[in-house]
């Protein structure tokens, strides 16, 4: 009897102590979360490590795959275990509206005028400009594809096509392939007829599509010859050209570019350090180092201007690359992603 009580007590005490040990780790170091891969490796070199050295405090970094649900779950759980997160534009808009992020102190960031207008928000500041574009292996294709119409043209360019699984990007590109001018894509897509039109255009290509999910996949698909063309993230393309000597090309007209931003999780215990870090990452001298590692555009105007010309040509922000490119409409997607994803799955299953 007594023994039973004692044993139980000991058990619970152990659990309590263990629990306390775990929770005491809440007085944790600044935790920064980004997209992983070679992008995060670059960030580590030019932002995380120098910042840690400057402040004399360690910086933890983690990676994630996106999703407002992840942010929401962390906020709901109480004190979040992330401080600074790099988010896509939809997550920025959603989380900002729902109060998941701290408001930024723009005076520390050099004022809103120092940035591209699209990179400025109450809750976030743009970190990179990146593009999803038609990509191909120039060593395999004799004739270079020019447009989404070429992407759809399986007679002229026989072979499979890589496409990110999901309605985002697929519908926009389908409309452009169907002759909608880039600037009108979202106007057309905002009507039920426009959505039908996009799906109908996708129907044509469906048997030839290989769907990919993670950013590294399209490179592998291109490299192995599994597909002749694919949608891909531009940073990955120039990255693999540099590291593996590939001759992958990006077709800029008709590409969709978007801005990823730094945000601070609401209730972060390291709020001040987080703000300091974001400021550090937006100092032009620091930011300008990024294109050496990965071909993403810089939302800080001063930094963007300082990028050497040889690197400039691969960036989504280069003027010649911007012609015919469309900014991703985050508002459209936060309104419609659920319904269109449901429909997209149904369409895939047909």
């Amino acid at each position, binding site marked *: *009897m007594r023994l039973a009580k004692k044993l139980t007590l000991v*058990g619970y005490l152990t659990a309590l102590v263990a629990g306390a040990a775990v929770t005491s780790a809440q007085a944790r170091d600044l935790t920064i979360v980004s997209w992983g891969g070679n992008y995060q490796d670059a960030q580590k070199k030019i932002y995380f490590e120098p910042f840690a050295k400057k402040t004399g405090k360690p910086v933890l970094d983690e990676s994630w795959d996106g999703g407002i*649900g992840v942010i929401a779950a962390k906020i709901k759980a109480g004190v979040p275990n992330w401080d600074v997160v790099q988010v896509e534009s939809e997550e920025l808009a959603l989380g900002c509206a729902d109060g998941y992020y701290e408001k930024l102190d723009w005076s520390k960031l050099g004022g809103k005028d120092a940035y591209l207008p699209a990179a400025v928000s109450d809750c976030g500041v743009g970190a990179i400009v990146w593009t999803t574009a038609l990509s191909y292996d120039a060593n395999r294709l004799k004739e270079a594809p020019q447009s989404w119409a070429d992407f759809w043209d399986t007679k002229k360019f026989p072979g499979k096509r890589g496409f990110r699984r999901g309605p985002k990007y697929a519908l926009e590109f389908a409309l452009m392939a169907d002759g909608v001018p880039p600037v009108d894509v979202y106007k057309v897509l905002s009507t039920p007829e426009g959505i039908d039109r996009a799906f109908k255009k996708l129907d044509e290509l*469906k048997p030839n599509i290989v769907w990919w999910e993670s950013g590294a996949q399209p490179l592998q698909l291109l490299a*192995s*010859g599994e597909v002749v063309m694919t949608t891909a993230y531009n940073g990955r393309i120039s990255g693999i050209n540099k590291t593996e000597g590939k001759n992958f090309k990006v077709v800029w007209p008709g590409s969709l570019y978007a801005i990823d931003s730094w945000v601070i999780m609401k209730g972060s215990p390291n709020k001040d350090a987080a703000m300091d870090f974001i400021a550090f990452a937006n100092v032009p001298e620091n930011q300008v180092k990024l294109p050496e590692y990965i071909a993403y555009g810089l939302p800080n105007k001063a930094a963007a201007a300082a990028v050497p010309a040889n690197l400039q040509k691969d960036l989504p922000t280069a003027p010649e690359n911007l012609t015919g490119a469309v900014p991703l409409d985050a508002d459209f997607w*936060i309104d*419609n992603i659920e319904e269109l994803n449901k*429909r997209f*799955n149904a369409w895939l299953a047909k």
Partner: protein
Amino acid sequence: MKAAILRERSGALLLVSPVLVFMAVFFLWPLWAMVTAAFVDDAVSKVLPRTAASIVSWDGQGIPSGAAHKALVQDLTAATDEQALGEAVRRLNSAASGFRTLLGRTIPAVKAASDPAQVDLLTVDPRWKDTRFWVALKEAMPPYTDRNILAAVDMKRDGSGSIVLEGADASAHRLIMLRTLLVAAMVTIACAAIGLPYAMLAASLTGWKRSVLLLAVVLPLWTSLLVRTAAWFILLQNEGLINRALQAIGLIDSPLPLIFNRLGVVIAMTHVLLPFMVLPIYSVILGIPRNLMSAAQSMGAGPVRAFWRVLLPLSLPGLLSGSLLVFMVAIGYYITPALLGGANDQMISSVIAFYATGTANWGLAGALGLILLVVTTVLYTIYGRFSTSSQVPGA
């Protein structure tokens, strides 16, 4: 006397209490959370109580009267909890696409107005003339809802409140669910076909040969799922090892389609899940007395008949529990189908993940999870019946 018994009972209860607490925290609580997420629907009514009271009387035709507009404006003016409001918005947008930007425009306008009573919603955004948004608002008011569970099986309530099927173009949850079960079944069968002879072979060997066989099947468990999937990607692709080898020896002219289809998914999942089949069968076979096979032979049963009549039936409990394990685990897979499958190999977990992490629609994610749980429970019950009838008493 009674007190002593009572004390003894409570002592026993105390000793098992960690187990009960564990069950409650790691089993009952998540289940309960899933159920409430699927059925409780108070996100909107909590934030918009006046609108809730006012819109009840609206018949769903056209748009509600000015009173409802006024109530909504009042509610939005009074709403200060950003996160609660955000949840309400998300709930509404999930019912009617566009609600988010509609409120995104309305809320600042209402808050900025010097006299909220003067705000006219229709001038703030003409979309307020659209019945669809008001219907979504009205339907979001009852505290409990069946819309998630209906949506999980491709159904919804129409304007009159009766349950109807969604169009085949609109939703494919049922199909994906069925496909998930089908892929899981295929993987289970493949695992059984390979695992049973494999386990029998391993059990019949001794010493290092047995160790090597068991290690070979368990080793993959020590590497991450992603690595194993990537390895299969390299093996199966058009210019992968298998196709290259087959072409080199002249068996085929053009690469076999081994990847981005169900075959690739089944191959990789079978490999990953094989240990869950082999190990239970192996341990059951080890428990079969060796002299049973000798006995069968002494009575005139050749190796084949001894296998069919004695070894196989006695291995069946292992085969059944292995199959159950593999099936249950396979149902939850989505990384492997996502990376190695084609358009029609996506499994239900990826849909659940989309709602849970992608759009924070935990209601629908919970409902899909519940459906999956129910299907699995039904299958498990069938299995239970089947396995007790064929089970060896005392064995």
